[in-house]
């Protein structure tokens, strides 16, 4: 308890400087923008803006990223409610009740209760973070290379089971990511690998080119193809609506709090991010509700449930990232890659070696949540104008930023071309249901995976039995086998049932 308090005071020290608060506010503005735009979410915002942080110290970078993350998650709800198109994937479930509310003329109430529920979910999960992360990190301190290797495998398996429809496709993407991570100089022997004899690839494929290519250019292409045309329902916003929404929150306080707790723990599980969490929370709350028939017709409970749980899950996803070095969501995977570039080693030693960073992140979580809330609530009418920005102006600007990001990696053409190639590849992957997140996870974790694998084998003198004789690693590896097997089993069952139905 005492070290938590001293940690928090250190975090307050880090966060409450003029420059860091300014950076936080800038992040909130930019994040809100990305959240509002349909098709682009905080995931894309973080991917595109991550390079900006390389000129900042790690603490400020993390505050900036956290601000984009929270504000983006919150902003997505406005788009879901007024447009019926999710502004972010996390807010997709918010459409279910949010848009019917807007149609009934209760759009402002929906937006305000979504914002307040987000704030509560975000704040509660930051508290959860404070109490869960330090003991988890302490426990993980006794992990050696075999345990970490097994943890990586679990992370891949978690993304595999949840990310896509087909496990085989997920595995292909994971392996492709691991192979990309192999390109360039082998750290252990110095050999040039997978360069196809081309010196331009000796530096390797940086994860950022893959990220901005797939989540920037690729996403933009997907959105262009869909050609978003939708009717905005412009609600009238008054202070009365705000007060009314607060009353509703107080009335449904247990629902909001329970969903925050639920979302947090879903977020902590590696692989499951905010999007599945909000759908699961919606499903559960609906089935346990007394008036479950009214869900989906535009009741505020629906909006509160999804927003509280998706915000909590967003924070929960940082817990395994900070404590174990494996990300809890696709977005956390990108942040993890960023941490490596900032010169930090994610994992249990972070709490000991970088207390300023960890506690700064925690306190920033609280502060940024509140900043995003104030910003959103006070500027709802202005934010809705942003929704009218034509996509044809944003598209080329986002593309240019992605290409510049590639260029500044090495100040050469090689990386620019990589961004373009990944962009087009990302578009095709999206079209054919190859999930992109496992690839990003594998590119980020690839070097660590191979390193821990080979180090374990050096420890054991080349015998792979080391992964099975260490109990924690054995349990984790068994768990990942189960995680891969469950969706395969379900697929086979589904197919059998289809055949039976077709026969009958």
């Amino acid at each position, binding site marked *: 308890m005492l070290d938590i308090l001293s940690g928090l005071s250190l975090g307050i020290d880090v966060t409450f400087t003029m420059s860091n608060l300014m950076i936080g506010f800038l992040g909130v503005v930019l994040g809100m923008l990305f959240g509002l735009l349909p098709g682009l979410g905080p995931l894309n915002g973080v991917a595109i803006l991550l390079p900006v942080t390389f000129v900042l110290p790690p603490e400020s970078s993390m505050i900036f990223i956290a601000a984009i993350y929270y504000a983006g998650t919150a902003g997505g709800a406005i788009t879901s409610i007024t447009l019926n198109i999710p502004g972010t994937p996390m807010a997709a479930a918010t459409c279910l009740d949010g848009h019917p509310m807007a149609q009934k003329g209760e759009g402002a109430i929906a937006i305000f209760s979504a914002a307040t529920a987000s704030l509560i979910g975000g704040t509660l999960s930051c508290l959860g973070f404070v109490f869960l992360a330090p003991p988890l990190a302490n426990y993980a301190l006794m992990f050696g290379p075999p345990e970490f290797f097994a943890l990586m495998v679990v992370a891949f398996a978690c993304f595999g089971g949840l990310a896509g429809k087909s496990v085989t496709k997920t595995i*292909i993407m994971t392996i492709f990511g691991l192979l990309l991570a192999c390109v360039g100089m082998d750290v252990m022997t110095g050999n040039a690998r997978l360069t196809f004899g081309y010196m331009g690839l000796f530096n390797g494929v940086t994860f950022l080119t893959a990220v901005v290519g797939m989540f920037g250019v690729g996403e933009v292409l997907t959105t262009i193809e869909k050609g978003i045309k939708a009717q905005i329902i412009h609600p009238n916003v008054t202070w009365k609506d705000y007060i009314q929404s607060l009353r509703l929150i107080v009335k449904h306080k247990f629902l909001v709090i329970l969903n925050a707790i639920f979302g947090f723990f879903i977020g902590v599980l590696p692989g499951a991010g905010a999007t599945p969490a909000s759908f699961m929370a919606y499903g559960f709350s609906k089935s346990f509700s007394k008036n479950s028939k009214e869900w989906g017709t535009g009741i505020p409970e629906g909006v509160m449930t999804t927003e509280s749980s998706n915000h909590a899950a967003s924070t929960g996803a940082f817990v395994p990232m900070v404590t174990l070095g494996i990300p809890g969501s696709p977005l956390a995977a990108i942040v993890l890659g960023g941490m490596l570039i900032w010169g930090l080693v994610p994992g249990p030693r972070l709490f000991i070696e970088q207390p300023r960073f960890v506690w700064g992140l925690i306190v920033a979580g609280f502060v940024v949540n509140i900043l995003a809330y104030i910003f959103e609530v006070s500027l709802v009418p202005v934010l809705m104008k942003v929704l009218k920005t034509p996509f044809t102006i944003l598209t080329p600007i986002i593309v240019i930023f992605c290409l510049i990001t590639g260029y500044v990696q090495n100040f050469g053409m090689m990386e*620019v071309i990589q961004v373009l190639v990944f962009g087009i590849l990302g578009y095709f992957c999206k079209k054919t249901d190859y999930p992109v997140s496992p690839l990003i996870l594998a590119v980020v974790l690839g070097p660590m995976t*191979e390193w821990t694998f080979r180090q374990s084998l050096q420890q054991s003198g080349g015998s792979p039995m080391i992964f099975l004789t260490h109990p924690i690693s054995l349990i984790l590896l068994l768990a990942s086998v189960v995680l891969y097997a469950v969706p395969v089993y379900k697929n086979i069952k589904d197919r059998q049932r289809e055949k039976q139905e077709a026969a009958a």
Partner: protein
Amino acid sequence: MKKAEIFMASFWAALSVAIILEVRFIPFTRQPVGWEKGLGPEAGWFPYWLAVLMLVCSLIVLIPKVLRGVKEGLAEDQAFVSVEGFIAVMRAVLPMVIYVVTLPWLGFYLGSTLYLVYYLRAVGKHSWTLSLLTGTIFSVTIFLIFENALKLTLAKGFIEPILNQFL
């Protein structure tokens, strides 16, 4: 969609074959792929076996799709994208490719202006005034951000001597 699926799966299969050849058989890029006694895997072991696994997985996706394609015929294939969708994507991708190809000569600043003006005018159907204004203001802004504030030198192309006077 079947054709696209088959194309994608063949792409992964071809890629894994290329990697297997690269790691194992091409003389200049070949890596040891064995398991050293007492030390564990050699440099090429990890990529080699990953590529083998990727080949297996892509065949698992590919073979049933091809078999079903042969049985049912690909003629009544559902289109991969709608015609409008395809045109819209091509209108974005082609200028993007041109932007990248001409980057060494035009640089980021001039290239961005041209790209933005083209895109806003031709795809977005905005007015000339808005297109030109956005293109110019954007390039000036990123020039100030990258060259002045962040001290990152981006490629400037043939207008480098002119732009350097503003630094």
